[in-house]
């Protein structure tokens, strides 16, 4: 008589819970990406070493996390998949050693390669300490051919094994990062950093001015603030977009006045809303001729860089540098905003940043 589904599932999870702790470490997902000797940085070195030692000693059964449990429950069909998963993980983990195992005489390999391995270790230690990624990239090929040999040599020298493993992990990680960056740059998908130029000019703690527009609060870093001017007579210029409110003369200069509400949220800017908005001030953008209209100035406060959720990827709104977490308001990327305004672009128009 077969068990019910509930009973089967319950038994399955009970078995999982009863798995011995050391076995779990072997089948952890972090250990899966390990190929050859390039084990995952997060994988404990001791485990990898014990695995290799055990496999070299031709005792793979000992690596099975629930080998004994499987025997006990051997008659139960649901225990089989877990064992298979373990095998797969183990095969990946030991793939390099498996190749070595195929060779007719491992001991001969150990002796013959011992010298070369030590040379590789010494080279690796010196090269991986160098900051240059290029140097790391150059050493990858010769090391790859010696991975098996270095693993085999582990049995004879634990300290050199750890050094070699660390070096390989480090140089692989750097090489992967570099290749990923190169790929991104080649595609042009992600510029180095969209707000990096802004972040560079800001201190760790910097001041921002908060201002209100039709219920929306925006922040502008004080380093990007060109000034605050009381709105006077704004001269309407024909043939301009609706967000271009006009030109206001100020001393001997002319200020291009942006209807902030119309620019930032054109989809919500209805004639009714336009009636209710009462602009009082112009927030000048750096040294440009552009001024953003605002209804009220809230305050200027110091905030920490880390309190801003900076935008990392280009998006539809390059003018938005990020979000101030505490006030939950957008912080302006003034340079990008000026670029867009100079180009006559609206909030949702795309900008070609070259």
């Amino acid at each position, binding site marked *: 008589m077969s068990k019910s589904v509930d009973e089967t599932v319950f038994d399955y999870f009970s078995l999982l819970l009863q798995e011995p702790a050391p076995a779990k470490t072997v089948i952890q997902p972090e250990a899966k990406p390990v190929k050859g000797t390039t084990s995952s940085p997060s994988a404990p070195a001791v485990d990898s070493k014990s695995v290799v030692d055990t496999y070299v000693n031709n005792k793979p059964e000992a690596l099975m996390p629930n080998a004994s449990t499987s025997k006990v429950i051997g008659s139960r069909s649901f225990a089989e998949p877990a064992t298979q998963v373990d095998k797969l993980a183990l095969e990946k983990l030991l793939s390099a050693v498996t190749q070595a195992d195929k060779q007719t005489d491992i001991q001969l390999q150990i002796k013959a390669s011992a010298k070369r391995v030590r040379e590789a270790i010494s080279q690796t230690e010196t090269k991986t300490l160098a900051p240059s990624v290029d140097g790391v990239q150059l050493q990858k090929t010769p090391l790859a051919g010696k991975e098996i040999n270095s693993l085999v040599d582990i049995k004879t020298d634990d300290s050199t094994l750890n050094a070699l493993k660390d070096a390989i992990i480090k140089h692989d990680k750097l090489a992967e990062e570099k290749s990923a960056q190169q790929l991104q740059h080649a595609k042009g998908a992600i510029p180095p950093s969209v707000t990096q130029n802004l972040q560079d000019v800001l201190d760790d703690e910097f001041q921002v001015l908060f201002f209100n527009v039709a219920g929306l609060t925006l922040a502008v870093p004080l380093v990007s603030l060109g000034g605050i001017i009381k709105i006077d*007579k704004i*001269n*309407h*210029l*024909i*043939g*301009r*977009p609706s967000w*271009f409110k006009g*030109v206001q*003369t100020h*001393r*001997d*200069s*002319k200020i*291009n006045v942006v209807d902030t509400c119309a620019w930032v949220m054109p989809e919500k800017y209805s004639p009714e809303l336009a009636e209710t908005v009462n602009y009082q001030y112009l927030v000048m953008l750096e040294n440009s*001729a552009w001024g953003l209209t605002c209804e009220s100035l809230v305050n200027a406060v110091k905030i920490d860089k880390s309190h801003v959720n900076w935008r990392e990827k280009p998006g539809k709104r390059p003018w938005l540098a990020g979000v101030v977490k505490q006030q939950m308001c957008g912080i302006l990327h003034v340079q990008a905003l000026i670029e867009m*305004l100079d180009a*006559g672009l609206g909030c949702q128009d795309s900008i070609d940043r070259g």
Partner: protein
Amino acid sequence: MSDSRSVAAVAAGKDDAVLQWVTFKLDHETYGINVMQVQEVLRYTEIAPVPGAPHYVLGIINLRGNVVTVIDTRSRFGLQSAELDDSTRIVIIEAEKQVIGILVDSVAEVVYLRRSEIDNAPNVGTEESAKFIQGVSNRDNELLILVDLDKLLSDEEWVELTQL
């Protein structure tokens, strides 16, 4: 040495020529047109509508025996129409070798502007009317918008006017 300086000064003076502009009001804004293109300024007189005329044409007037087409400047500039009053004027201008009249709210004065005092208008306009503005100038803390009358109508529209 002094000769070269004077030559440079003359050249600079030529570059920075003084231009005269007739200013008029339209929807509370002050516009300027080159005085050389203005023939005369008339008080509002009855304008006879022309059937089938383009929407920017108000009609025609009889100016001492000559028929002059009057343009609806507000409509052309994308502004809302307004009631006529005592200060409404028809400015007779010459552009593209044609004499036409433009209806304005009022005519203000003639101003003198150096070329160096004229700035480019913000280049953010994409509409047809954006090209009418050839520059802006800050005068007595007031903005003067300078209109290029030749661009008030397109080439096709100028031709169309002759066929009215």
